[in-house]
């Protein structure tokens, strides 16, 4: 593997993604955990760029770092005593073994492709653009039904969450 911008980028984003993920599951302080989560998701956005999907990368940053990080922080502050819980984990050993086994199985599935042919080494030249996504979203033969359902889902989520979170006494 030669050293070029893509491989350097891949290495950096891998450190971000996995390091951030490690931080999320180990940190005691939930605010720091949120920051670790954002580091991890930033790395994922980097992967999207390497995979020629810059629109998804921008949206990933907009949604996660711009909105979900803020929301999680607010929730952490609302449930403040959480930062003082002494025990971080329950069932530490079994879950560690379980997830390690899962990882090994997944890795085996990737490296020994018993479920199909060889994995492709190189990607095709052509990449879809954002405009094509937009056209497909509102196309009768495209994604117009999921597009509408997404709107319904978001509406339901917003109404539901407001209904749940609102303090009736205040």
């Amino acid at each position, binding site marked *: 593997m030669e050293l070029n911008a893509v491989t350097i980028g891949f290495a950096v984003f891998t450190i971000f993604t996995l390091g951030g993920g490690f931080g999320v599951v180990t940190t005691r302080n939930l605010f720091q955990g949120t920051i670790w989560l954002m580091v991890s998701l930033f790395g994922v956005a980097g992967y999207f760029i390497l995979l020629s999907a810059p629109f998804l990368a921008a949206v990933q940053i907009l949604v996660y770092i711009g909105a979900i990080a*803020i929301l999680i922080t607010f929730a952490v*502050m609302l449930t403040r005593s959480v930062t003082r819980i002494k025990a971080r984990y329950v069932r530490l050993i079994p879950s560690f073994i379980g997830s390690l086994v899962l990882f090994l199985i997944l890795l085996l599935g990737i490296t020994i492709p018993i479920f199909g042919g060889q994995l492709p080494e190189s990607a095709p030249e052509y990449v879809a653009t954002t405009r094509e996504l937009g056209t497909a979203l509102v196309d009768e033969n495209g994604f117009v039904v999921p597009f509408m359902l997404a709107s319904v889902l978001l509406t339901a989520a917003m109404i539901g969450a407001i209904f749940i979170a609102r*303090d009736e006494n205040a």
Partner: protein
Amino acid sequence: MNILNEWAFVGLFAVMAPVFPALPIVIAWLFRPRKPNVLKSSTYECGVETIGDTWVQFRVQYYIYGLIFLVFDVEMVFLFPWAVAYNEMSLFGFVAGFLFIFLLTDALFYAWKKNALDWK
């Protein structure tokens, strides 16, 4: 590979961008006086010693604003491609986008009627 070249520029820009503000801070670190004392590096609040972690009386309203913002922000995932493809789409495509926005506006209207938008 053209698209990745563009992003290599952005990547380098992103690496350099924090370096510019870091430079004066590092220079200042070399020159600045260092005379810390307990009083100086205590939390700058009201004079009485600070007790416990930082925590302030927190309103659920902050969360609700964040929540509505989140929903509208996620909506952009679809609205930006829709806007970009706008010139090429038929009337049907426009109506689909219109319904999409309209449903979300409904949710905003619900929040308004339930007084969830008021800062109490």
